């Protein structure tokens, strides 16, 4: 073997251990899941003992109204929490982007909800939503209003509120960071050009923050599709199927209904949805990079 071809092989030799670990840790479970989704598989069986059923699991799921309901709930949940969180998070950031005494303290307070374990969040909110002893209904009663059936008739809304409480800080922090890295002089120029506070937000701040906001939004969306613990603790998916989001349905299909093959197929559906989102995000990043590179090239050409 010539020297140069050995030299060319070197990097791959060094990368090999990482590749092997990646394959074992990432691809093996994934492959296992995909393989399992084509089989009628009970947890008491080894995967090899199960029978091959082809696309039956996928097909059944596609026609299962309960699964469709679950997808609808997931979409409703994810889209509404992300929309509301974006509006509140970015709004708060725009309001608090100024030099205030104790601002760093305030910021720490804001991100506290994010740091609490999801199970604890679920428990706390379940107690707050309690029909008789919960703080919400007690307060409503004390000011003479009718109590609300939080986790009953309004379960999805209640779950959405809890998620907004926990995750708005994430968007707030990122939006604030984006705001504070905006070019100060462009904002001053806008003031001189006669822009009001609102016009500065619409014409300068938001467009300049957009790249960060889009990535933040997609990250939150991916996360919201997979949320499990908070809802599990608060409602267990009920009442009926009203809060049974996909992650919850997958876990119940696997443990309660003992249908591992179907659960695997469901996971794959969720994975496909998330993949589409991720590809969107990557494509967006790629597009931004391309635009930046083109701008640099043009600038270099004109010297």
């Amino acid at each position: 073997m010539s020297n140069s071809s050995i030299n060319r092989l070197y990097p791959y030799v060094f990368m090999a251990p990482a590749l092997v670990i990646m394959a074992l840790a990432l691809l093996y479970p994934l492959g296992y899941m995909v393989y399992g989704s084509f089989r009628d598989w009970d947890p008491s069986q080894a995967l090899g003992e199960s029978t091959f059923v082809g696309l039956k699991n996928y097909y059944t799921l596609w026609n299962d109204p309960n699964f469709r309901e679950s997808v609808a709930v997931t979409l409703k949940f994810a889209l509404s929490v992300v929309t509301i969180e974006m509006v509140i998070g970015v709004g708060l950031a725009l309001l608090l982007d100024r030099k205030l005494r104790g601002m760093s303290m305030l910021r720490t307070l804001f991100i506290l909800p994010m740091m609490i374990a999801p199970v604890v969040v679920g428990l706390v909110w379940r107690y707050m939503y309690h029909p008789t002893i919960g703080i919400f209904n007690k307060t409503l009663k004390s000011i003479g209003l009718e109590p609300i059936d939080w986790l009953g008739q309004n379960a999805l809304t209640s779950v959405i509120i809890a998620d907004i409480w926990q995750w708005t800080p994430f968007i707030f922090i990122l939006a604030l960071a984006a705001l504070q890295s905006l070019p100060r002089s462009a904002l001053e120029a806008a003031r001189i050009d006669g822009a009001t506070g609102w016009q500065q937000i619409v014409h300068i701040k938001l467009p300049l923050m957009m790249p960060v906001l889009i990535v933040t939004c997609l990250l939150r969306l991916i996360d919201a599709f997979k949320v499990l613990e908070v809802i599990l603790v608060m409602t267990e998916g009920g009442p009926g199927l009203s809060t049974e989001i996909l992650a919850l349905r997958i876990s119940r299909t696997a443990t309660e209904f003992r249908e591992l093959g179907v659960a695997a197929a469901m996971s794959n559906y969720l994975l496909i949805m998330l993949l589409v989102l991720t590809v969107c995000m990557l494509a967006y990043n790629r597009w931004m990079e391309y635009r930046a590179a083109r701008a640099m090239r043009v600038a270099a050409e004109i010297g």
Partner: protein
Amino acid sequence: MPKIKLENLSKSYGDFEVLHSIDLEMQDAEFTVLVGPSGCGKSTTLRMIAGLESVSAGEIYIDDKPVSKLEPKERDLAMVFQDYALYPHMNVAKNMSFALRLEKRPKKEINTKVNEVAEILGLTEFLHRKPAELSGGQRQRVAMGRALTRDSSTFLFDEPLSNLDAKLRTQMRAELAMMRQRVHKNMIYVTHDQIEAMTLADRIVVMHGGKIQQEGTPEQLFKHPANKFVASFLGTPPMNLLQASVQGTSDITSLIGSGFSLRCDDNTKQRLGRASSKEVLLGIRPCDLVFDPSAPEASSIDINVVVSEYVGAQSVLIGDCSGQKVMVELKSDTPIGLGEKLRFAVDLDDLHFFDVDTDQAIV
């Protein structure tokens, strides 16, 4: 065009006062340059006029109307920033028309105005480019165009050329000077570069330590600096400042320093009589030292030349006059040798004197 007046204008950050009660009046259609070293308060003054900084004390008047509490947009100003401050997400045309679009002017009027200004600045072919796709000089021009499209009465420039390389700076300086002839508006220009100040200004305001040191035409300031700071700040190479003492009998007065002894005429004697002590600071511009080996000792200075900096037609000699550094500007083809003691003739009328206690010029 309005008259702009600053009255007892001060600015403090906490207990720290950066601008000490400034008074200044700028006339109609005048090009005023605020110049001074970093931290002298010139940018702060400009930003206060623009309304980007609050006023701690005093008042700014535009046409006798107090404006210090008004928002920037209510002051009818346009400003060019040091880093251009273009809107990165808008193309050149959008950048230039932003103010007009906010005012909801008719589209046709906006287009006409943008095209007209782009024509003047040579930006027509770049109207659809984003700022990132432009070179430094072009961005600078867009920033200027953005100010020009608005029919503001006053233009503010905050060190607009300092981000450009030397060659481009000279070119843009010339373009600015040409634009100045076409556009008859009030212009207030901040720079730390005294050459920009000298070449562009109708009136220069030299600032230092949050105070105005002197204001006047470039010529006034160059020929009659009011104090030691102005004398050494304006002019390249800077003015030489030498320690000297006035000595003499009833009929002969001499100005004696280490390495020279100059005989004073009546006029100079009178001027020196106004000094607070016998010690004065003698100022002499490098271009006023004339190489003349045959000059009499009583009207010349002997300098030991150490370094010669060749800059083309002219050379700058750095020499030593009994321990004090002296710079001389002379034609490059003058036959001199390094390390030699050379004699330079001095005309008494070219000398400046400064009081050692107050640093003020003795006139």
